């Protein structure tokens, strides 16, 4: 019998990865390409959507050939993607309209403030489950419509299409200008501020509030169903899943039951808690979001704690400060010292996300003395991720009334033992890494495979989950509390740095 596989595409913030999984959920081959990060002005972050599509066009066939697999052996393709990043393109030429505006981009901060002062602003949280913030797509989309002459009219006529990355890739995979399918999924749509979290449809009032023409929006579909068949990159392969990367990780970690949570450590870090089939409203700075929806089944919701800067702080340490040459070396450097030496870094590069949601915050390094070495700074970089996790877990516990007993983790930073131990220490709770650290990709593969019957049900997927590593708390309580108090004092000092009508 010929072996069959599922292909997963993880279109992330810094790179795109293509992974082939077998029936046991095991990795068979991986290809990866980074794309350029463009910072044209302070606070602006852009990607070239064409570059990302070309990367996928090259990598998907390469992933097959590395494993010696033919496209006919691939039963389905699933996509997980960086969320909220906004792409506009011309339906007739297939060319993007300008660059994609990335989720970290804060060019809309004044626009968001304007919106917040308008009548009907309270609708946003009520209908979409999300606060008005630069993080989400709608203000970005409106900004592009406002700043590109003639664009609004083209959008109204349906000549220009909007999408997040999964829409862009599905459209291109299914033929682009030759019959490309224009769809999004409930998880990505739930991050636009334009979808009603209860009905899972575009909300007329929200579209009106933000001034977005409905003609440019993709159709909202579930996470696991047949969207179309690829005619490019991997011709003939069925495309049957798309999820925002964090929801994909929740799915890949098999957090199918209410109360199960995971945290993915990547460029940013995102803790998602499955809250079942009812959207739960947070009173502690967490987001209400769609977890996943399989075909016609009821949607499963999640509470999300979003941390903007974790892995990207390590990248900054590597690329902008040049203190290490590769990201994993941060651990080597941090281990040259015993502790942080009294130094704390709060990476509020584009404000602070959960649980603070302070757009006016900017990053700081505090506690500098002549004693501090680059080793202490490396510690402070890693500890920033640990403390930010603690803040989000505290909010999660307060909202759910439960105590998180174990934290399931995944993502690239889980290779950092010092960091994983630190997180276990500061929570304090056991931290567990599953056998497949690539849960974002795995989640997209699972959803795609489920849709075509490659895997029968959620229980079958759950049996594939195994513990690969576990870190247990070992820090003494007194030290933990005093360190946490220091961290909180450091966070307070970031607030209010950006003043209204002054650019950062």
């Amino acid at each position, binding site marked *: 019998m010929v072996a069959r596989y599922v292909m997963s595409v993880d279109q992330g913030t810094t790179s795109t990865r293509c992974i082939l999984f077998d029936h046991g959920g*095991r*990795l068979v081959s991986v290809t990866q390409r980074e794309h350029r990060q463009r910072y044209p002005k302070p606070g602006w972050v852009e990607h070239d959507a064409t570059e990302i599509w070309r990367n996928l066009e090259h990598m998907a066939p390469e992933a097959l050939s590395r494993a010696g697999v033919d496209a006919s052996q691939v039963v389905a393709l699933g996509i997980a993607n960086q969320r909220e990043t906004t792409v506009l393109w011309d339906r007739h030429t297939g060319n993007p309209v300008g660059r994609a505006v990335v989720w970290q981009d804060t060019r809309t901060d004044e626009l968001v403030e304007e919106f917040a002062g308008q009548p009907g602003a309270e609708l946003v949280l009520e209908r979409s489950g999300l606060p008005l913030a630069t993080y989400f797509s709608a203000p970005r989309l409106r900004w592009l419509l406002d700043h590109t002459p003639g664009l609004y009219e083209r959008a109204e006529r349906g000549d220009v299409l909007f999408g997040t990355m999964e829409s862009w890739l599905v459209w291109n995979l299914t033929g682009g200008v030759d019959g490309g399918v224009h769809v999004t999924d409930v998880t990505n749509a739930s991050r636009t501020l334009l979808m009603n979290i209860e009905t899972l449809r575009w909300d007329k009032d929200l579209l009106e509030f933000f001034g977005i023409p409905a003609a440019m929006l993709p159709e909202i579909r579930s996470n696991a169903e047949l969207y179309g068949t690829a005619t490019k990159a991997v011709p003939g392969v069925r495309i049957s899943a798309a999820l925002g990367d964090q929801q994909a990780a929740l799915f890949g970690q098999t957090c199918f039951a209410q109360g199960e949570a995971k945290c993915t450590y990547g460029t940013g870090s995102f803790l998602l808690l499955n809250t079942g089939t009812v959207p739960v409203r947070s009173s502690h700075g967490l987001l209400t979001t769609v977890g996943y929806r399989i075909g016609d089944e009821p949607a499963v919701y999640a509470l999300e704690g979003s941390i903007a800067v974790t892995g990207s702080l390590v990248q900054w340490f590597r690329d902008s400060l040049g203190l290490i040459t590769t990201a994993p070396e941060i651990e080597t450097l941090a281990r040259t010292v015993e502790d942080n030496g009294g130094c704390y870094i709060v990476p509020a590069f584009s404000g602070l996300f959960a649980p603070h949601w302070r757009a006016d915050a900017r990053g700081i390094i505090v506690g500098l003395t002549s004693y501090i070495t680059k080793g202490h700074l490396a510690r402070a970089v890693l500890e920033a991720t640990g403390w930010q996790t603690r803040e989000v877990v505290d909010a999660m516990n307060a909202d759910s009334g439960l105590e998180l007993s174990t934290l399931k983790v995944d993502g690239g930073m889980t290779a*950092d033992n010092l960091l994983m131990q630190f997180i276990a220490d500061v929570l304090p709770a056991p931290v567990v890494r599953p056998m497949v*650290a690539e849960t974002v990709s795995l989640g997209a593969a699972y959803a795609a495979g489920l849709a075509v019957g490659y895997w029968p049900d959620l229980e079958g997927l759950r049996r594939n989950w195994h513990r*690969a*590593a576990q870190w247990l708390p070992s820090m003494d309580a007194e030290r933990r509390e005093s360190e946490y108090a220091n961290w909180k004092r450091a966070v307070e000092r970031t607030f209010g740095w950006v003043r209204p009508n002054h650019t950062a």
Partner: protein
Amino acid sequence: MPGSVQSIERAAAILRLLARGSGRLGVGEISTSLGLAKGTTHGILKTLQDVGFVEQDKASGKYQLGATLLHLGTSYLDVNELRSRAINWADALASRSGEAVRIGTPLDGKVLVVHHVFRPDDSLQTLDTGTLLPVHATALGKVLLAYDSGVAAELAGATLEQYTRRTLVTPAALRKAVAEVRETGWAGEAEEFAAGQASIAAPIRGYGGYVVGAISIAGSVDRLYPSAGRVDQSLVTFVQNASRAISRDLGAGRW
């Protein structure tokens, strides 16, 4: 103090010349530039070519710096970097073999465990990343002994501690085992470190094929060596496939 070795001085001069030039140089050009006899120059170039420090273009017959030399300074691989690059393949190996996986690098005549993946049965296990294992009694160690001359040198003259009655404690026995590793490309050990336990390992190669570490599976001797003490060949294949996948990702090329 011994005087300087003339041929090494000349070799260094040739390398400097090649490094400075914009393109490739012929034997004649090199001889003229350095004031050396053509025969001498040719002999030195031949030796440099053998060790990979220079390469000869087949079409023109001219010489240029070799890839080995260009990557001389980068053969060192940070252990945290190694873990990060190997983590996916180590997971897949644990999943396929059903055994615990470890990655080891040499440290002061021991094996430093830089990565550990639990046996995928969800039983209680403790991470032993950061611990040291003996070189002569583990499959990881035997691989490092076979491919890393530094490890072999550090072990020379050391007492080989006896952990079980099967531990190889004589230099001759160990030499024989290591020769076998070089021949087959993998190392095994059945109850040489702990009763009832066994391990299988293969080398991880970095840029240019230089061995930077080893990856192993370890578990019950009944599973790894099931029939009359003979190794389960399919497990060996899993380990070798994982080691090759990691090596390829690290840029080892033809391995």
